[in-house]
C-alpha cells in the first residue's frame, strides 16, 4: 500500500487504488447551454462509499443525477464527457436506460415509497418492472432486500400494509430496500437523511457501512460529519466564478478531513463558507 501524506494509520487503505465501479472523465452537465457542473474526473471505488460534498449550488446533486441518466427527463439538459459503469459507457455505450437504471439504483432526499402500493409491493416493484413474476423469487427478494435495509423484523408481520403507515425513517429504509431488491451494482443516495430525525439518520448511516459489502455507494450530503462518518472517498465540489460547480479535491475521506491538499477544502471543512 502506498503511503498517503498526512495519514499514519497502518490500517489505512487508499480507496483510489481499488478497482473502480464507475469512472467519470471530464463530466460536465449543462442546462439550456448553461454549465452547472464542469469537468469532473474521478473513479468511484467498488464496494466503498464515495461522498460528494460542497456548498449548495456546487452541483453535487446535478452530478449524481447524471450517473443514472436522470437528466434525460429534463428538457434542455445535456451531459458531456465520459461516464463508465465497469467498461460500459453509460451514455454512448448503447445500454438502454432501463437496464442502466436497474444496475444503478437511487435513493432520494425525501422518502418516496409508492403511496398506492403496500410495503411488499414497494419492495418488489423494481423486480416486477424488470419482468420477474415468480412468487418464490419475489418473496425471497423482498425478504433479502428488507433484511439488508434493516427493516425486515419490524415489517414482516404487516407486509400488506400501505407504505404510508410507516414512519419517515422506515419509509426511507423501504426505499433503500426497494432499490436494493433490483440488485444494483451502484446505489446513488441524494441526501438520504436530510428529511429524517437524528435517530433515523444514525440508523441509515450504520446501514450504509453495512451495505458496502453488497453494493457500491455514492452519496451526496450537505453534512460534512456524515461524509466523514460513512464515506471512504470524498469528492469536494465548489461553485466556480461562472457559477458552475467544479471539482476541487477528491481524496480519501480520512485525508480530506485531516490534511486536505487544497486551501479551499480546508476553508470549507472549517466552516469558512457554505
Amino acid at each position, binding site marked *: 500500500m502506498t503511503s498517503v501524506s498526512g495519514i499514519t494509520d497502518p490500517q489505512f487503505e487508499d480507496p483510489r487504488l481499488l478497482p473502480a465501479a464507475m469512472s467519470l472523465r471530464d463530466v460536465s452537465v449543462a442546462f439550456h447551454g448553461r454549465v452547472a457542473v464542469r469537468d469532473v474526473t474521478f473513479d468511484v471505488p467498488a464496494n466503498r462509499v464515495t461522498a460528494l460534498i460542497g456548498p449548495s449550488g456546487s452541483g453535487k446533486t446535478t452530478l449524481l443525477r447524471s450517473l443514472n441518466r436522470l437528466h434525460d427527463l429534463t428538457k434542455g439538459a445535456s451531459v458531456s464527457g465520459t461516464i463508465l459503469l465497469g467498461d460500459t459507457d453509460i451514455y454512448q455505450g448503447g445500454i438502454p436506460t*432501463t437496464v442502466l437504471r436497474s444496475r444503478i439504483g437511487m435513493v432520494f432526499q425525501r422518502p418516496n415509497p409508492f403511496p398506492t402500493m403496500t410495503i411488499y409491493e414497494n419492495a418488489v416493484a423494481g423486480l416486477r418492472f424488470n419482468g*420477474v413474476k415468480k412468487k*418464490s*423469487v419475489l*418473496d*425471497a427478494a423482498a425478504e433479502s432486500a428488507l433484511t439488508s435495509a434493516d427493516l425486515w423484523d419490524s415489517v*414482516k408481520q404487516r407486509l400488506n400494509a400501505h407504505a404510508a403507515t410507516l414512519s419517515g425513517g422506515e419509509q426511507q429504509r423501504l426505499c433503500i430496500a426497494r432499490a436494493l431488491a433490483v*440488485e444494483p451494482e451502484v446505489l446513488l443516495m441524494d441526501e438520504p437523511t436530510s428529511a429524517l430525525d437524528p435517530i433515523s439518520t444514525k440508523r441509515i448511516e450504520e446501514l450504509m457501512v453495512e451495505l458496502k459489502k453488497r453494493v457500491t455507494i455514492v452519496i451526496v450530503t450537505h453534512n460534512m460529519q456524515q461524509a466523514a462518518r460513512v464515506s471512504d472517498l470524498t469528492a469536494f465540489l465548489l461553485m466556480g466564478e461562472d457559477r458552475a460547480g467544479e471539482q476541487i479535491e477528491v481524496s480519501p475521506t480520512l485525508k480530506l478531513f485531516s490534511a486536505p491538499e487544497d486551501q479551499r477544502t480546508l476553508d470549507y471543512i472549517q466552516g469558512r463558507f457554505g
Partner: protein
Amino acid sequence: MTVTIKDAEIREHLRERSVATLRRRTYISGVMTALCWLAITFAAVPLVAVIYQLLRRGIPVIVKSGFFTTLPQQPTIFDANNTGGVSNALVGSLAVIVYAALFAVPIGVLMGVYLAESTSKFASLLRIITATMVGAPSILMGLFAFEVVVQQMHVGFSIIAGSFGLAVLVLPVLATATEIAIRNVPSTYREAGLALGAKPSTTSLKIVLPAASTGIVSGIILALSRAVGETAPILLVIGGAYAIAWHPNQAASALPFQMFQDVQSNYPSLQNETWGIALVLVGAVFIISFAARLWAARKKKVQR
C-alpha cells in the same frame, strides 16, 4: 415466508428476466407513447375540423348582404334561397344576455365574495351546492325558467324567461370565478388593510376587491360570452318570434335558438345559413375570451 432461494439465484433470475423482457417492455412503452401522441392529435382534430367548416361554409353566409340587418324569411318552392337574415336573433341574443347579466352578475359576484371571505358552515355548504349546480344540465334551467317566469309570474314566453334560465346557469360559474379571483389576492393585502386600522368591510371593498377586480371582470366576460351560445336554457321559454324584440316581456329569437330551428328545416338553404350563425357565435366567443385573457394578463403585468 421461508427463504430457500439465495441472493445469487435471485440476482441471476432477475438479470435473466430483465434481459428477456427488455425488448417487449421497450416495445410496449414505445407503442403506448405513440398512442398518447395519437390521442392528443385526435383531441385537436375536431377543433380544426369545426373551425375549417365554419370558415368554409360560414363566410359566404355572413358576407351575404343583409345577413345582420334583415329579418329571416321562409324559403318557398319558388325561391328556395330566400332565407333572409338574423337581425331579430342578434337583437334577441343581446337582450337576453344583458338582462341575464343584470340579474346574475351582482348576485354572483357578491356571493363569490361571501364564499371567499366566510368560513362559516353555511359557506362550506354553499360551496358544495355551487359546485353541484355548475354541473346541472342546462335543459333543466329551461324547465325551471318555464315554471317560475312563464307560469308562476304569468309573464309568458319571453326574453326575460330566457334571461332567467341563463342567469341561473351562470350564477354558480360567476360565484366560483369571483371566489377564485379573491383567493388569489395575497393575504398580505388584507392583513395590511386591517393593520392600518380599516374595518374588515372597508378592507374588502377598498383593497381586496380592487386587487381582485381583473380576475372577477375577466371571469364575468368569459362566463357571459359562453352563455350567449347556450341553447337549452332559452329553448323552452323564449318563444321564437320573427320580429325584432328587446322588451323583457316580448317573445324573441336568439342566435343559437335560430340555428337549432334552421338546421332542422327541410330547406338546404336554411340549413346552410346555420354555418353563418355558428361562425358569428364561435368568432364572438373566441375573440371575447381571447381579448379578456390578454387584458387580464396585461393588467397583471402592469400591477407588478
